């Protein structure tokens, strides 16, 4: 029983960051209809920004987090402006392949600059974990959960309570009509990609110090993000949050009770199962797929 509770605690910490990754991707996928293969690179990028600010510049850990979010936002905006804006109106395969090219180039760039050796980030949190009866959780992981929850809340408010959010939702429903109503669709696309990218960078900045940082860390994160998006349904933010926690639970239980070697297979098995039984995602209203 205590083992199961421990898995639940781990699931909460992991699920929070997975939700961040999923929200970012589902926004881009849903609003822009772009299969964003650079999402994982942005995750890696966020983690390396943490490494640069904390280890190389020696600045405060809590300052590094907003720096990573901002850097992710800027890089996302740059990718959108240089690679996606000129290809507006191309089919989904073309933009996807361009994103794959950008992903290869940027990941190799990371490898070139920082090398393949895994890096770690020192955190200001005490080594000793917080013990709550039968379970224990490290202070760092608690902070990760709190920060992720806060970012999810901010994103939710941004989408649902601001005029930018309203314009994004309108573009998601019908970009031609939104454009006719005076929404600057180009600006919405750039903002969407920048916000999605900053969330991926935030997820990397939060999980990087928990694990280790290396150039290929984003690859698995990207596929997990796709699993979450498929689970939650296209462009569905609430679905992405719930999907993030479901994937985390499946991974924890799979690693705990089946075999730790298959932890990372859970996301893929979920993708395959969802697409077989409920291809519109678990929480989507009826909508045509593909």
């Amino acid at each position, binding site marked *: 029983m205590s083992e199961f509770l421990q898995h639940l605690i781990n699931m909460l910490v992991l699920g929070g960051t997975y939700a961040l990754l999923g929200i970012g991707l589902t926004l881009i996928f849903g609003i822009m209809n772009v299969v964003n293969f650079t999402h994982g690179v942005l995750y890696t990028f966020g983690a390396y920004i943490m490494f640069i600010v904390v280890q190389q510049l020696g600045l405060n850990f809590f300052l590094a987090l907003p720096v990573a979010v901002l850097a992710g936002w800027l890089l996302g905006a740059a990718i959108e402006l240089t690679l996606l804006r000129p290809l507006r109106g*191309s089919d989904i395969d073309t933009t996807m392949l361009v994103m794959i*090219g*950008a992903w*290869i180039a940027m990941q190799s760039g990371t490898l070139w600059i920082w090398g393949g050796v895994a890096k770690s980030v020192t955190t200001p949190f005490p080594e000793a974990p917080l013990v709550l009866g039968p379970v224990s959780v490290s202070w760092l992981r608690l902070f990760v959960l709190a920060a992720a929850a806060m970012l999810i809340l901010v994103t939710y408010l941004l989408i649902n309570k601001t005029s930018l959010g309203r314009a994004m939702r309108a573009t998601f429903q019908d970009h031609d009509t939104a454009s006719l109503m005076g929404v600057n669709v180009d600006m919405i696309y750039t903002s969407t990609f920048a916000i999605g990218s900053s969330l991926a960078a935030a997820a990397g900045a939060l999980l990087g110090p928990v694990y280790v940082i290396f150039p290929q860390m984003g690859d698995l994160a990207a596929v997990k993000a796709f699993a979450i998006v498929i689970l939650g349904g296209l462009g569905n933010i609430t679905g992405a949050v719930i999907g993030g926690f479901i994937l985390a639970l499946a991974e924890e239980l799979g690693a705990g009770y089946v075999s730790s070697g298959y932890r990372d297979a859970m996301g893929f098995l979920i993708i395959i199962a969802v697409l077989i039984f409920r291809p519109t995602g678990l929480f989507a209203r009826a909508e045509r797929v*593909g």
Partner: protein
Amino acid sequence: MKAIVTILAVAALASVPLWLRDPYLLNALITTGIFVIGAMSLNLLLGFTGQLSLGHIAFFGIGAYVSALTSLGFDIGLPGGFRLVHAPWPPIIGFVLAILIAGLCGYFVGLLSFRVRGAYFVIVTISFAEVVRLVALNWVELTQGPLALTNIPSIALPLPGFGELTLRTKFHNYYLVLVVALIAYLLIARLVHSHFGRSMRGLMENETLAVSVGIDVTRTLTIAAVISAAIAGAAGSLYAHYIRIIDPEVFAFINTVTMVIMVITGGKGSLAGPVVGGLIFGLLPVGLRPVMAPEAQWIAYGGVLIAILFVLPRGIVPSLALRLAKWRRPAGPPPVTVTETAAKEPA
């Protein structure tokens, strides 16, 4: 004209081992040839049905593992205390089994994933390849996991009256790969120009219209997936018996991406496209190696992929064919019309 070019190209390729003595270059040509076969099989799906399989390396890897395990033998425990013991068989049987089992996997993936299209199909195929990779990594009893399967025997051809010819040298393997590539090329060419090929292109151009004229879309797509997977499996088998060692890294996503780059660069939906793209991207690392670090090479790869999509979105071969058509018929109809008919004509 076209036939002469083809015959000259084949003759030029066949003459290479007679004058090229550098084993490093010959090795690069053989592995490139193997990947060209993979790229041709990917082109059958991507170029002629419009379905992008980003898990294509799974069929290649399954072919490699099936062929290696058939010729090495294995001894694994099954649930319930049974053991499955397989004594080594000749590699040529492994080659055949690799084609059959990869094709079977193509059938199941097609069955599952052609319920969805577009981005969803892409993600299902990625997931499939990753699950297969994790199984190859974790089922240590069968695959040796990260320790790799080693000492895979070379393919031996039975020659009636002369015993056996073991294809161990690069010289032999070059011709083996060339012959398999030619067979795959001719098979795909036949298929594309048949009634079935017209069904495939029809549903790529307009699926609703294809259904309305009586094309069974799911069946057509599944058959294309089976043939494509089987050819990829053959390429994987050649790879296993040539390199003679395989580990789960064969399933790396970057290998699928390499094949996709070959197809896109050369020109999807063109028969010669994957060959041209494959030769360029297979030999590019050889040319870049003295001047660039491996990481920088990959940056160049990504950059070239993006540049090709921006500058020549149709790929090299179709763009060149278009240039040639314009050059030979300067007073003919305006080039735009040529483009449109070339793209829209259902062959």
